């Protein structure tokens, strides 16, 4: 046997090693080709899915504040806590730790984990920042991946039921309901943003990798025309009036007649907006000044007489022979309590609130002209005040299928048609404002996050309804009808008041129920230069059915406090300076 050449042996081994390396390399290359080329896109997608993070950045809904900067509504962030139960290795320990942080019973949490072994379960809802920070610290310490925090904006109403009807409400699904919240929802909402990037195993962002930051744009801050001092006064007075008259519900509106600005608006009952979701019967908390209709009753006589004077069918010295009833085709009109007043002029007709005389004026005007004035005063169309869900009301006219002969005789004293209290006060304010109908407005300014200066809402003249001279005469008649009756409960010491009571019967099962009424008073002061128009409305009062008994004193009580609040100087002092 000849000895093998050593160089041949080395070469053989080298070739073998080389072959093995080549085979290994080829396998590696094939594998690489398989994973990187053939399944490359799929793998890239899976990797991206595992690390990609698209975190929504919630925009804050804008604040709502009063004219004097009292905060009524604000968004804050709260945290929901979730646990991915399938990834929990020690459920007992996690339940015990979370129970301590969240101040919840450990057994409840544990039971939740055991009942949902394959779910991501919610363990806490709307927790404050302090709790979220404790959770974050705990996660970092324990290196936990199965506990997650989710940030959520929540609406908070720091003043509870204060101005609740004006503000409206945001429910758990962030949907607006009523008030400014609903009307201004597009302005208040803002635009959500997002943070798109990559996260590590602890779900933390990896900022050194490419990411896209789309910041949220917060909603605009809305400043109302509401004065918190006036609002408090009318809320207190309304609550007191409801208790004393044992009325079912009620409302008070205060308006600046020259601009149409709503200075205060109260509705009873009023819910604590922070607990509104707990209410079973949420419907009873609507804003009845715009969301509910009523028959304005004798307050509407202001409109009827103003129209009669403006059209020239009556003059301030017109007198009537009142026989207590008026029978025309389709209508039988009687005065309240079947009073027969005899020879009465306008002031007395207003003072006694005679239905027959109002009906006569409507008949003298004629149907088209009467309804034309009613429409011009804004009845039958929304006032466009910035409160959600405003109703238009319905004034039936000849030819609309519902109207019948004689209806306008009833309409003349505010029965047989529907209106909102907001329409009524706007119409009365038009008389106070020299015949100019102003759009009622409750939003004073809007401050967008992107703008340097707030956008101011300007007063808006809707139309000149009656001539200024007619408005003045009407004011004199109304003031005379109140001020010359010393026992009138609407009198405000030191100030001339112009106004009118209303007692409208409520229709029950197609018939007017004489025992169920809506008692109201609409008036303004000082009569010669009105600064405040006030409408008081009490639904189904029990102590008395009459507006003059239950609504007039509320008007006087409210007005006495508001003139001090608004700094309105008594007439005698003011006139002494003229």
């Amino acid at each position, binding site marked *: 046997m000849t000895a093998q050449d050593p160089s041949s042996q080395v*070469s053989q081994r080298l070739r073998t090693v080389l072959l093995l390396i080549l085979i290994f390399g080829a396998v590696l290359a094939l594998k690489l080709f398989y994973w990187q080329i053939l399944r490359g896109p799929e793998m890239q997608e899976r990797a991206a899915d595992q690390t990609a993070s698209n975190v929504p950045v919630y925009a804050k809904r804008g604040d709502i504040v009063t004219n004097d900067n009292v905060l009524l509504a604000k968004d804050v962030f709260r945290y929901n806590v979730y646990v991915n139960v399938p990834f929990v290795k020690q459920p007992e320990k996690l339940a015990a730790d979370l129970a301590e942080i969240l101040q919840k019973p450990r057994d409840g949490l544990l039971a939740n984990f055991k009942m949902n072994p394959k779910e991501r379960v919610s363990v806490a809802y709307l927790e404050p*920042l302090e709790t979220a920070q404790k959770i974050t610290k705990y996660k970092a310490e324990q290196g936990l991946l199965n506990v997650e925090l989710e940030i959520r904006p929540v609406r908070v109403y720091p003043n509870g039921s204060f101005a609740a009807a004006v503000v409206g409400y945001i429910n758990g699904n962030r949907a607006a309901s009523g008030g400014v919240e609903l009307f201004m929802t597009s302005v208040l909402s803002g635009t959500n943003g997002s943070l798109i990037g990559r996260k590590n195993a602890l779900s933390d962002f990896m900022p050194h990798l490419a990411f896209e930051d789309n910041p949220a744009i917060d909603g605009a801050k809305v400043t109302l025309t509401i004065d918190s001092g006036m609002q*408090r006064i009318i809320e207190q007075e309304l609550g007191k009036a409801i208790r004393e008259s044992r009325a079912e519900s009620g409302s008070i509106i205060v308006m600046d007649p020259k601009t149409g600005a709503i200075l205060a608006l109260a509705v009873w009952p009023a819910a604590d907006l922070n607990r509104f979701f707990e209410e079973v019967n949420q419907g009873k908390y609507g804003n009845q000044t715009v969301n509910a209709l009523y028959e304005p009753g004798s307050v509407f006589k202001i409109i009827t007489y103003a129209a009669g004077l403006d059209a020239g069918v009556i003059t301030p010295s017109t007198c009537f022979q009142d026989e207590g009833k008026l029978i025309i085709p389709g209508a039988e009109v009687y005065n309240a309590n079947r009073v027969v007043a005899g020879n009465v002029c306008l002031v007395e007709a207003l003072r006694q609130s005679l239905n027959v005389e109002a009906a006569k004026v409507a008949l003298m005007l004629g149907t088209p002209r009467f309804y034309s004035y009613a429409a011009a005063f804004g009845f039958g169309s929304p006032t466009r005040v910035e409160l959600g869900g405003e109703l238009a009301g319905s004034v039936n006219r000849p030819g609309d299928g519902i109207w019948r002969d004689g209806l306008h005789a009833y309409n003349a004293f505010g029965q047989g048609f529907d209106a909102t209290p907001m329409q009524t006060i706007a119409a009365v304010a038009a008389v106070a*404002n020299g015949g100019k109908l102003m759009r009622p407005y409750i939003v004073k300014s809007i401050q967008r996050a992107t703008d340097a200066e707030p956008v101011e809402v300007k007063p808006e003249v809707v139309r000149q309804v009656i001539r200024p001279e007619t408005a003045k005469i009407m004011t004199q008649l109304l003031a005379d009808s109140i001020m010359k009756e010393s026992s009138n409960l609407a009198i405000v010491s030191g100030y001339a008041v112009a106004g009118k009571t209303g007692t409208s019967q409520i229709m029950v099962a197609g018939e007017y129920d004489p025992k169920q009424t809506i008692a109201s008073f609409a008036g303004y002061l000082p009569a010669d230069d009105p600064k405040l128009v006030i409408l008081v409305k009490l639904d189904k009062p029990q102590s008395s059915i009459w507006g003059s008994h239950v609504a007039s004193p509320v008007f006087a009580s409210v007005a006495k406090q508001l003139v001090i609040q608004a700094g309105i100087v008594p007439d005698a002092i003011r006139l002494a300076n003229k």
Partner: protein
Amino acid sequence: MTQQRILQRQMGRSFSFGDVRTIALIAGLFALLGVLYLVQSTQATYAGRHIRDHKQEIERLQRLNEQLEIDIAASINPDRIAKAALSLGLHPPKEAQIRYKLNLKYPLVLQPAKKSVNPPAPESNGFVDWLRGLWETGARTAEATSR
């Protein structure tokens, strides 16, 4: 040249010092690049964490600020203030407690009137006269009644 010498030459070339140096240099370069990358990414991560911490602090302060705004709003609730004032013995003024003082020289410097959207109609003497008359007749009795 014998086969033995050829093999020796080949082996000598495979493990020459120059080749090793080149390989080591390349490996060193790769290692350096790796270290640089690691340093960079570590620094970026630290910076990222730093930014995140600051962002969290900003967020915490913002939330705290929001909560304070709400607390302030709740504490200056007009009803609460009124109750607190009443408990301190403060009451709204009664009519008799208010003294109106007219400054006939006011305003000292007349400013041009701002253009009003809806200027009130000019006062006629007739209306003021009517109001004066009203006070002479009705309001006196009203005052008496209200007392």
